[in-house]
């Protein structure tokens, strides 16, 4: 019997010819990414256990993003601590304000993500990097500390669910709509302890940005990783970001065993919206139309990339957002911000009545830069609409694509983007 892409990566990283789902392996980690919120506890653990040096400073990348620019004194102290620790450990890959960005957008953009590698970060949306055919998963701070110390981490080899996406993508439907649909089919725990491999003609035609949106939200179905087999689109992105051609490409064998195969034809899909308070609570936009909003947020590791900003700008160009709506746009990285500026997208947003901020995770997790008050409602291009996710436990978050967010901002209520495209 053959092996899945994920099984092959885990086997190669634990010195094995083959691994079987369910077994525990101790795998080598190629890249450890650290952000501001979960790294300080890891540093404290290393100190507590007397571990003086990290296993390899060059394999560690530090990208503070959640509460940056520092939202308060405690957050400032955390980043200060990490900055000092990085210096002491001789970790050169530190992305300070001015070069910064949301780690899951910045890591591939800066050329750290390669097919066939293992990547961990103390952040659940690390699944994003599976878009490049890597094994990338979110962990806690103790896992982070263990990997920083040893360069290895234990994993239970997951079974893989194959999600095959076919058909012709209708206008107004984007990767975000498709992944929300997949989550509604799987449920928020449908892939717990499992890998999700996305395949099919729709995925094959997607840009890397769209593939990252897909894999980013694999965790919202409980997935350990979300992966896509590398192809010419992947290689083209890697060439553009200056990645050396020294990686290994793994593909699932034709006779690989999948725990489940889910087929989705998107030809008849409409844009969708995830209602509060679960990402799986997905309905067609037609069922959401008319729900009044107070805030519209465009950004995050899910949908804060250039492709997302371009689509939203297309919708907003020459139009005004509703008087009562606060629209916040946050390009995911400094480079994205600069390119969006060169293309005039930021001006389009400001002219429409939105505001544009510096890269940060900020509002997505109710951190800062756009917190909701009780009774307020936000349509958001982010990944979670849990109770209190963006602020007050009495606020509501509706998840949607950048186009739907922009269209809703114009109408002041949830709107179908197709009329503006």
């Amino acid at each position, binding site marked *: 019997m053959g092996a899945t892409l994920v099984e092959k990566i885990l086997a190669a990283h634990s010195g094995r010819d083959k691994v079987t789902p369910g077994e525990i392996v101790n795998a080598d980690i190629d890249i450890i990414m650290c952000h501001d919120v979960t790294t300080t506890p890891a540093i404290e653990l290393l100190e507590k256990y007397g571990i003086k040096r990290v296993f390899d400073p060059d394999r560690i990348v530090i990208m503070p993003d959640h509460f940056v620019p520092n939202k308060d004194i405690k957050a400032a102290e955390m980043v200060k601590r990490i900055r000092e620790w990085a210096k002491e450990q001789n970790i050169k890959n530190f992305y300070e304000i001015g070069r910064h960005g949301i780690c899951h957008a910045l890591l591939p953009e800066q050329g750290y993500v390669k097919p066939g590698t293992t990547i961990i970060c103390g952040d659940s949306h690390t699944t994003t990097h599976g878009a490049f055919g890597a094994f990338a998963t979110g962990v*806690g701070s103790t896992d982070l500390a263990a990997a920083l110390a040893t360069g290895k981490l234990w994993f239970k080899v997951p079974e893989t669910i194959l999600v095959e996406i076919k058909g012709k993508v209708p206008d107004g439907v984007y990767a975000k709509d498709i992944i929300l649909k997949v989550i509604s089919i799987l449920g928020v725990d449908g892939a717990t302890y499992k890998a999700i491999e996305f395949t099919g003609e729709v995925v094959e035609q997607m840009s890397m940005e769209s593939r990252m949106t897909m894999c980013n939200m694999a965790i919202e179905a409980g997935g350990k990783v979300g992966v896509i087999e590398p192809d010419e689109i992947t290689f083209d992105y890697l060439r553009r970001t200056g990645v050396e051609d020294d990686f290994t490409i793994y593909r699932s064998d034709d006779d690989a065993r999948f725990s489940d195969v889910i087929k989705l034809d998107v030809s008849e899909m409409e844009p969708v919206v995830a209602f509060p308070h679960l990402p799986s609570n997905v309905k067609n936009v037609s069922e959401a139309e008319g729900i009044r909003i107070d805030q519209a947020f465009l950004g995050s590791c899910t949908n804060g990339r250039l492709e997302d900003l371009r689509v939203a700008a297309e919708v907003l160009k020459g139009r005004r957002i509703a008087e009562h709506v606060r629209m916040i746009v946050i390009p995911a990285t400094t480079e994205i911000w600069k390119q969006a500026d060169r293309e005039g997208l930021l001006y389009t947003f400001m002219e429409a009545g939105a505001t544009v901020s510096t890269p940060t995770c900020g509002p997505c997790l109710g951190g800062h830069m756009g917190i909701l008050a009780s009774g307020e409602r936000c349509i958001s291009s982010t990944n979670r609409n849990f109770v209190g996710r963006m602020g007050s436990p009495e606020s509501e978050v509706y998840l949607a694509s950048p186009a739907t967010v922009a269209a809703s901002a114009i109408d002041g209520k949830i709107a179908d983007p197709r009329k503006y495209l």
Partner: protein
Amino acid sequence: MKGRAIVYERNHINTDEIIPARYLNMDNEKDLAPHAMEDLDLSFQEKVKWGSILVAGENFGCGSSREHAVWALRGAGIKAVVCESFARIFYRNCINNGFLAIECEGITKYVKNGDEVELDLERGEFRNINAGKTLKFHPLPKFAIEIIEAGGLMSYIVRGSV
């Protein structure tokens, strides 16, 4: 291990509810504890005074990978979490902290808030002393028991077990 149960029948209780992100600028158990479950149940802090075993539905701890969720619960006085099922990262974080996370099917139907309950790890049994009922649970994987017995993943590694 004996204690009183604090029960949330709901499924998909996420880490944003267990410890909201506005408190992630802290990582000390003592600082996090007063905010445990704040967005889910404001009376949790009262209940935790009389209870020490948290019981909940499916997919407990889904969402963000923040280990602060484990620290907040432990800091508040919770000794073990017994659920229908767990989300993966939270479950990992429990094991890595040497904190007991037990999967027990049907648990929410057999326990009420305030019931006196007992966890027997050797036999893999959950007893509701008030109701006089016993439920079997899936024993923890061997690897997980070794880590928990070592006092967590870091102790396990320092001992050279991995």
